């Protein structure tokens, strides 16, 4: 009996939850950006499609004063993900407390390499003897800073 009730209730609850979470198109714009104000005559190249989502409660990327702009954050996230200068054909959809941005990541000429193209960073480690010398230099520098203060 319990199993039957469970089997009937579970799909009903699932349908109910799915109904609560509706998504709707908020706005569609040909181009949006958080990192540029307008192109200075540079040529733009398409990086590829982008899909970024910013939800309530997530740590904001650009808002620092306690007021969070949902669209601002979605754009900043998309630009950070792809290294884009702006997002073309941007579609903003609101769904389940999230702002979803879909569009095409575009990069302006001379805007710097995208983060993915930079590759893993490596740092040269000095040999042991040099490390001791380096530690001494840092200690001297710190002492100097304390004296100056």
């Amino acid at each position, binding site marked *: 009996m319990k199993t039957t009730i469970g089997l009937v209730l579970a799909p009903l609850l699932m349908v109910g939850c799915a109904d609560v979470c509706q998504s709707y198109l908020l706005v*569609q714009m040909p*181009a949006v950006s*958080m990192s*540029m104000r307008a192109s200075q005559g540079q040529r733009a190249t398409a990086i590829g499609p982008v899909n970024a989502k910013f939800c309530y409660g997530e740590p904001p990327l650009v808002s620092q004063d306690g007021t969070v702009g*949902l669209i601002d954050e979605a754009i900043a996230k998309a630009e950070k993900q792809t290294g884009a200068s702006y997002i073309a054909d941007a579609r903003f959809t609101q769904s389940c407390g999230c702002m979803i941005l879909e569009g095409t990541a575009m990069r302006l000429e001379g805007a710097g390499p995208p983060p993915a193209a930079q590759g893993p960073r490596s740092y040269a480690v000095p040999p042991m003897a040099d490390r001791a010398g380096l530690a001494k230099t840092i200690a001297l520098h710190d002492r100097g800073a304390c004296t100056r203060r």
Partner: protein
Amino acid sequence: MSGRIGILVAGSLLLAGTGCAPQLHYQVSKDISFVSYDENVAKGVSVGPIRGADCTWFVLGHVLGSQPTLDRALTNARQARGESVSDAVNGGMGTAVAGPNLRYLTDVSTDHDGFNAGFFGKTCLVVKGMGYK
């Protein structure tokens, strides 16, 4: 006894944590650097600050027409219309003559505006920014 003390300590910590947590306020957009109305993203000529709004009247708690949308507020900002009223009378066609067609906006923010006089009122979604042609 020790269980109760544990619950009390946990409750106090939870309350203290909630009190100290920074409160975040959310709005649709706060300060978008660049919003373009067409595919041309080249620098244009500034026409100064621009404001566009989409409003709805309500009487005795009943909304006349549809809720204000960002889409219409942005369209009004582009045409320097000021505001449009989405109600049963004009169907949200806008109240002023179409102005210059802007190419893009910078420093775009949204805000809510309006008033409530008890049995009737108005609610607006306002878009502000710097307009460029």
